[in-house]
C-alpha cells in the first residue's frame, strides 16, 4: 500500500470545515463513498480541496459482499465513477452482508462462516476487482451471533484472503469486541492474521454495558484503554498504517485530534523500535 503511511482519520461531514482549516492534518483520510457520491453543493468545494490535498482511502458500507445474489452493477458503477473521479486507489469493505433479495437492512449482518461462503465471497471479490479495476480490501466486521459455522473467524478471513488473494483491513476494535462477545483470545486471533495481508488498520470505540453480556461496536465512543493496549501489541506484529474510525456520536474535531495524537505517539514508538 504505497499511498498511505502513518496515521489516518475518518473524514466526517460534521467536522469538514474544521478539518479543512487544520494546520497539522492527519497523514491520510478515509471517506465513505456512499456519503459523498452525491456530494451536496454546501460541502463540495471544501470536500474537493481536501481530496486534492492528501492521500485518501475509500471505505464502503453497502457492497454487501456476502449476499447470495450478484452485486448490483449500477451501484458498483456509481462506486467506480466516484473512485475514478477522485483517483482513489484503495477501496475497502466489510466482510458481512446487508442486502438480501434486493432488500436493504443498512446494517452489517453476520455471515455463515463456511467453505462454500469462502468460495462465494472469493469469487465475488474477483468480480468486484475486475469491475472496479482496483483491489478490494476486506475488513473483519463485528458480529453478535454466528448464524452457522464450520470454522473460526480468523480461519474464515484467512481462507478468503488466500482464495481471492486480497488484502485485509484489520479493525482492532472489532477484534476486541468479537473476542469479548464470543470468548476467544484477541491476541491469538491477531497472531493468526498474516502481517503481509494487512493493508491498514482501524481503531475505534465501543460501548460497554456494565450489566449486559455484550459489548456493542458503536464506533461512537472514545477508544477504550483495552483497545489501545491491544493496538500496541498488534503493532509489534503488524507494520501497517492505522486510523481512527468514528461513525456515530461525532465529537468536535479537536477531541478526535487528541485521540489522533495519542495514536501517532503509539505508532511513532513502534517505528523507533
Amino acid at each position, binding site marked *: 500500500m504505497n499511498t498511505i503511511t502513518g496515521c489516518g482519520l475518518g473524514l466526517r461531514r460534521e467536522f469538514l470545515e474544521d478539518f479543512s482549516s487544520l494546520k497539522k492534518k492527519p497523514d491520510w483520510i478515509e471517506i465513505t463513498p*456512499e456519503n459523498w457520491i452525491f456530494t451536496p*453543493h454546501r460541502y463540495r468545494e471544501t470536500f474537493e480541496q481536501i481530496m486534492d490535498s492528501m492521500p485518501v482511502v475509500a471505505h464502503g458500507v453497502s457492497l454487501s459482499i456476502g449476499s*447470495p445474489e450478484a452485486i448490483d452493477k449500477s451501484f458498483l458503477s456509481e462506486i467506480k465513477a466516484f473512485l475514478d473521479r477522485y483517483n482513489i486507489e484503495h477501496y475497502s469493505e466489510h466482510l458481512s452482508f446487508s442486502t438480501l433479495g434486493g432488500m436493504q*437492512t*443498512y446494517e452489517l449482518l453476520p455471515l455463515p462462516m463456511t467453505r462454500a461462503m469462502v468460495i462465494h465471497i472469493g469469487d465475488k471479490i474477483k468480480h468486484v476487482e475486475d469491475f472496479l479495476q482496483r483491489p478490494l480490501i476486506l475488513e473483519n466486521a463485528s458480529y*453478535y451471533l454466528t*448464524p452457522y459455522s464450520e470454522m473460526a473467524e480468523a480461519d474464515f478471513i484467512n481462507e478468503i484472503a488466500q482464495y481471492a488473494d486480497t488484502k485485509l483491513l484489520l479493525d482492532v476494535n472489532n477484534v476486541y469486541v468479537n473476542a469479548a462477545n464470543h470468548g476467544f483470545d484477541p491476541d491469538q486471533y491477531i497472531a493468526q492474521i498474516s502481517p503481509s495481508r494487512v493493508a491498514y488498520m482501524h481503531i475505534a470505540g465501543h460501548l460497554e454495558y456494565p450489566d449486559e453480556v*455484550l459489548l456493542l461496536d458503536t464506533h461512537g465512543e472514545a477508544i477504550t484503554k483495552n483497545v489501545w493496549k491491544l493496538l500496541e501489541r498488534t503493532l509489534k506484529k503488524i507494520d501497517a498504517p492505522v486510523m481512527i474510525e468514528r461513525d456515530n456520536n461525532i465529537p468536535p474535531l479537536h477531541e478526535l485530534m487528541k485521540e489522533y495524537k495519542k495514536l501517532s505517539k503509539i505508532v511513532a514508538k513502534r517505528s523507533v523500535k
Partner: protein
Amino acid sequence: MKTETAVMERLVQIIQNNEEISNPLNNRLQVYRDMVYFRFFETLENIYPILSAKLGAELMNELVCEFISSGAKSPFITKMAEEFGHFLRHHPKLTSTLFLEDLLWFEYGELELLSRDFNDTHARLEWSQHYKLSSSSLLRNLSYKVHTGEFESPCVSSLLLYYHFDEKRVYFEEITPFAQQLVEKLENLTLESAVSTLAEMYELDVETLRQSVRILVEKWCNQRVLIKFTEV
C-alpha cells in the same frame, strides 16, 4: 450455498419481521433487530420531523416496522426516505391524512435540495428571455399550508423551496398565485410576453406590472431561483 442462503434468509426474516423472540433481553437476534430498527427510525425521523410528530410515536413506530418488512431498495440510506414516502402514500392507515402528500413534499424537498449539487448558470433579467425554475428550487401548489402548521383545514397556496447559496440552507417562501402563474408562463413565453399576457388576464397596466415583475424576477435571478431556459 443453499444452506448458507437459507440461514441468511431466516436471519433477515427474523430481523425484518416482528415475530416473537424468546427472552429478547438476552437474545442476540434482538440486538440486530434493534440496530436495523434504530437505523431506519433515526434516519426517517431526522428527514421527516414534522410528519413524525404529527403521526405520533406509536403510529410512526408501527409504520417504520412495516416499512422495514416491506423492504427498502436503495443502497443509499437517504434515498430510503424517498421510498418511505411512497410507502406512506399507499398505506391504508393514512388515506384520511389529507395533508400527507404536501408534508412529504415539504420535508423531503429540503433534503433533496440540500443533497444536490448545482451547475446552473446565474441568470440576469432580460425581457426577451425565457426562464425556468433552477435545479436549486422546487415549487408546488399545496392543498394544506403545512409550512405554517395548518393541517386541519385545506387552504391552497404556492410554496417555493430554494437553496440559499451564501447561507447554504434551504428557505421556503409562499408566493402569490400571480407569481406562480408567471413562473409557469415563462417556460413558453418570453418575460416580455408573459407580462403582457398576465396584464391582460388581470386587467392591469403593462408598465405598472413591468415594475413589479422586474423586482420579482431580479430577486429570483439573484437567488438563482430562475435560470435561463434554453431549448436542448
